[in-house]
């Protein structure tokens, strides 16, 4: 367990009007949107594959993962390249806002913001004054894609 006062970094991004965050340790890089090739029979959340400097990687839509309507991409759309275990996958977000430094005990863990299939995708809540930030559980999200 991390020490309660230890600062952890999160990358915060927007989906619609809400703010989400992922542990920076899972994020390899933030990329601009690229042309997506559709992959037949892929899971609903996966939009297809992209060419990332010569590597082929799948991309998923954070909107679909979190249960939002799909929207056309804009200039602000970014792909966060997420890495966990043997997975390397891009996550498309509306906009990356900032990097947050949060002490571990300032995150309210065990919050279950989503139900059903998406249960567990949000694992924590950061109360930052004007707007709460929802922390995404990357391992759980990737598990969701497999099943």
């Amino acid at each position, binding site marked *: 367990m991390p020490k309660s006062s230890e600062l952890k970094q999160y990358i915060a991004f927007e989906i619609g009007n809400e703010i989400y965050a992922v542990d920076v340790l899972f994020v390899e890089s933030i990329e601009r949107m690229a042309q997506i090739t559709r*992959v037949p029979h892929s899971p609903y959340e996966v939009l297809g594959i992209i060419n990332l400097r010569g590597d082929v990687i799948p991309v998923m839509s954070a909107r679909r993962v979190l249960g939002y309507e799909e929207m056309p991409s804009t200039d602000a759309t970014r792909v966060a390249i997420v890495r966990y275990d043997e997975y390397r996958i891009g996550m498309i977000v509306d906009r990356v806002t900032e990097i947050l430094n949060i002490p571990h005990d300032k995150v309210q863990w065990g919050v279950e913001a989503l139900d059903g299939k998406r249960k567990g995708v949000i694992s924590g809540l950061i109360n930052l004054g004007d707007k709460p930030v929802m922390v995404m559980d990357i391992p759980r999200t990737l598990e969701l894609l497999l099943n």
Partner: protein
Amino acid sequence: MDNAQYMKLFIEESKEHLQNLNNNLLVLEQQPDNTEVINEIFRSAHTLKGMAGSMGFKTIADLAHAMENVLDRIRKGNMGVNVEIMDVLFEALDILDGLIQDVIQVGMENPQDISGIKSKLEGVINGTNNKDLGQSAQKPDKEGLSLDEHHFHVIDEAVKNGFTPYYIEVKLKETCLMKAARAYIVFKAIENFGHIIHSHPSAQDIEEEKFGLSFSVVAVCKAELDTIKKELDSISEIENINIREIQPHDIKSRNQSENRKPQPQGTDRGTIPEVKDRLSKTAGRSIRVDIERLDRLMNLVSELIIIKNRIQDLQRYNDTAAMAESVEYLGRVTSELHDAVMKVRMIPIQTVFERFPRTVRELSRSTGKEVKLNILGAETEIDRTIIDEIGEPLIHLIRNAIDHGIEAPQERVALGKPPVGAVELKAYHDGDNVVIEVSDDGRGIDIDKVLKRAVQQNLVSREEAESLTQQEILQFIFEPGFSTAEKVTDISGRGVGMDVVKTKIESMGGVVDIDSRPNQGTRFIIRLPLTLSIIQALLVSMGQEVYAIPIGSIKEILEVPAGAIKMVRQKEFIDYRGLLIPFIRLAKALECPDEAKSGELVTVVIVKKGERLAALSVDGLIGQQEIVIKPLGKALSKIKIMSGATILGDGRVVLILDINHLV
């Protein structure tokens, strides 16, 4: 530390020596008098012992030493070869292999109790020791002591100084509790009269009680034979003592026989330097390269091919003769470079096949069936990555062939077949594929039984079952949990395995076909791509989308009239040269969003999956291109109809269809 660098060498070389031992032991079993092979085996064991010793792997060195002792006796002609001895040697080899595998996996020796196998090895020696005892009473040069030049020299010197050389063999009583201590007392007693110059087993082994009931020593003493005998007889717990003076002529005859007996070895000596010479020459022309470096080279070639495709693409903006020529030249060079790098990665399938004679030997012994293994095309070269993977499925097929295929000898004779069953392993190149066939001349697969089982296990409905072809029925044996075996044997029949074989082969981009005839035998035909990462492909368009089809799975491209598509039991077929083959609408199979083009003529790509054909309808043809296969990543690994993706010259990502799963 710098040990790591020796470690790699140790692993590589010990693997080679293990394989050498394995191969040569098999030869020895067939040709027990082949001195060249015995020497070769002895050298391998000896080198292995030395290497392990210098790396500090004591257990390995110890076991290799024990094997060496047995081999040495065979080499010196003190002991013949029989099945029991071979079994013990093979068992020791397996344990040695296990120990070395531990080293490979964890980088250090896994200390293991090897006293069991060691005493078996000693048992082999002692077994013949006892036999020798009777016959060789007057033939001291046949005794179980391996005396070398040095010992003879010492004996000579001692004789000059008034000592008498004795050969003393002591057998302890079976009831003797502390053998080592008793042996120590014997040693002490002998040393009262002179010096022990050699013992068998070695003094250390005796001290550690690593011997059976008997041991022997050569000593030089200044006492009469009777005096020594009397003294030794007074020690309790001794069954018997055999003591004999070593005559000077014995030593001479020994020396002579050393020179004479290996007369064939004399010629051998002529050939050894030659062999060595040849070896050192090849050694000079080849080097060991870390597979990772080759992978890196291959990746760079892949990148080069992508950029070449890109430049080819850009050619349209500057379409001059000079540009065209340069691009063509670039294309040729990259292709050749690719070929060259690929060849470096290729190794003969021999390295996999050479394990199998051993497997067959063991299966044949455990099943009581006589089996002869024929290997053809072992020199066929195949990509290194495939070599590492293919062994396991092949072993499985061989096991099945022997366990289920080959009948018992009596049964075979009753059927008018030769009593010895034949299993054949055959490898050859076929276009861009490597084909490996495993066949037997056994009873064949019972099609009716397979179909009955398939219906029982609900793999197919009774109605559907009627329309299945023989090939389709045979494919059921690859279903998980499928088994027609009525009794489970040690070797196979639990219904696990064939599905693993298929999965493994498909994961390498290959296919398996089965050909089976009642009472004539079964043949498994495995087709694998020559290389896994760069292939020639046909690009086809489906609406806005582009897909790549590997050229290796394409038989022909045709245009057929829309009216030629026939419906049979809700499935579409077309007539291809008099053969009805499935017609697959690619747009539907790939869930394409765009409306499929409809017209008078349909463009179809005839693809093959092993022996089976199918027609894929496509919207348009773009052209042939060399493409680099990139994996789709774990999140999409469940999608079987794609074998990966590639990046085109313009940076676009295109999916590669896996015909094996689509058809």
